[in-house]
């Protein structure tokens, strides 16, 4: 499967990019974050994050489809 990953805030700093295409056999956001964490050294625990798929908040256990845009959202700090 191929996913588009977009990174914001501290995750973008640690990934060293704002966006990447990722190929993997995984199809669940929770497992995908673990895989990406060991690749990029993400320090935020998944329990601190929310996940968005194709521009909407989603469940960590949703089954991903090829071509999905996935964003792991650090705790927000706007306002």
């Amino acid at each position: 499967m191929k996913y588009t990953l977009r990174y914001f805030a501290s995750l973008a700093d640690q990934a060293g990019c704002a966006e990447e295409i990722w190929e993997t056999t995984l199809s669940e956001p929770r497992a995908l974050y673990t895989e990406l964490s060991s690749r990029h050294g993400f320090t935020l625990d998944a329990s601190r994050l929310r996940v968005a798929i194709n521009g909407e908040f989603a469940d960590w256990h949703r089954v991903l489809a090829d071509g999905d845009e996935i964003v792991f959202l650090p705790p927000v700090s706007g306002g």
Partner: protein
Amino acid sequence: MKYFLLCADALDAQQLALELSSDRAGAFVSFEGRVRNHNNHRIVQRLEYQAYAALAEAEGARILREASEKFAIEHTCCAHRVGTLAIGDIAVWVGVSSAHRDAAFACCRYIIDEVKLRVPIWKNEHYADGESGWLHPDNTPVGTG
């Protein structure tokens, strides 16, 4: 009328307020979040806001819809800056018009609280000592751990 905006340029509070006026509104309450010159005892020189724009706009609009249903208001609007801001700049603006003041105060407070909790926007503070860092919702640094 209700809308949520992400803006790359300076927010014009007067212009935003104009669009909320109504002959039926006896009350208007607005909130401005401005860039302070200090946080956690460090001197802040400027800051940056980064947004996941598509989701921020959808979630912002959702908050305004909820607020319009929850409170007896006429109009509301919320605008949030993205990009680089200087001390004193308006980071976020919320305005609410209503017939009576109870609803305008409560609704304005509700919107800014929900925006800060839910809208995917992140603040990166740049300090006088040259360092910078992303912040948690409570304005403490994300740090490395």
